[in-house]
């Protein structure tokens, strides 16, 4: 499943990284604590958060995440969008809150179990 598939399935709006939607999604990671994402996320994960500042792009780049979805109607700030475009990190937004968005992603087959 690619980021594009997720965008299509949920009608998510894109805020950055429109050219990088073909990345394969290896799983999902949900956290608003950057140190936690750095420690425990895996390459290719789709990251669900409400944090919208530029540091999220740095983290996504560092961990080679497939993309970031902001929930609860949050919008990335201007610096974040710019950085995301530079680094080629897709940023998507959803009006749903975290629990529900994750629930739905889970139902279409994205897992939160680490690859063995």
């Amino acid at each position, binding site marked *: 499943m690619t980021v594009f598939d997720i965008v299509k399935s949920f009608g998510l709006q894109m805020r950055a990284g429109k050219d990088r939607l073909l990345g394969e999604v290896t799983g999902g990671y949900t956290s*608003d*604590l*950057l*140190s936690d994402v750095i420690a425990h996320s895996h390459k290719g994960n789709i990251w669900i958060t*409400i*944090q*919208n*500042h530029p*540091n999220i792009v740095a983290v996504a780049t560092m961990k080679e995440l497939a993309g970031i979805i902001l929930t609860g109607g*949050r*919008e990335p*700030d201007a610096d974040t969008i710019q950085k995301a475009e530079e680094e080629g990190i897709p940023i998507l937004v959803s009006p749903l809150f975290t629990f529900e968005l994750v629930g739905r992603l889970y139902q279409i087959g994205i897992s939160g179990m680490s690859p063995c």
Partner: protein
Amino acid sequence: MAEAEENIRFHAMFHIEGGNFMNAGAISSRVKKILKEAGFPGKIIRRTSIAAFEAEMNVICYANQGNLSLLITPSFLKVVIKDEGIGIPDVNLAMTEGYSTANEKIRELGFGAGMGLANIKKNTDEMILTSKLGQGTHLEFIIYLDGQNEG
């Protein structure tokens, strides 16, 4: 802002220690307890507690110390928070949802989503925020009781 010629039925003041992240909410919990024991309706208690909590968090995150006062009158609840600290350079910007000056440490502890002042505004009937750079911030908010008395 309604001037306090009203009959003050109750007044309490609490000290908030800046940097005391672990116990953020301890003071607003006490406020909640007072309001609950006084028999205010659930919605009033909740709105006041949320606003007080956000205000308390701001003092903890950004100020050296502060005081929170709760005043109860027959027609409204008033909370005043005065703190000593660096103050807010741009109050309008600070009120914007998602705007945050939180450093990494603050974010890692679960604070700094930038929703605090907006949450206060959402939950109160009147709000006044003023600040002096290098000195501190003064926040007041009022919640009307809509003709209901305590008890």
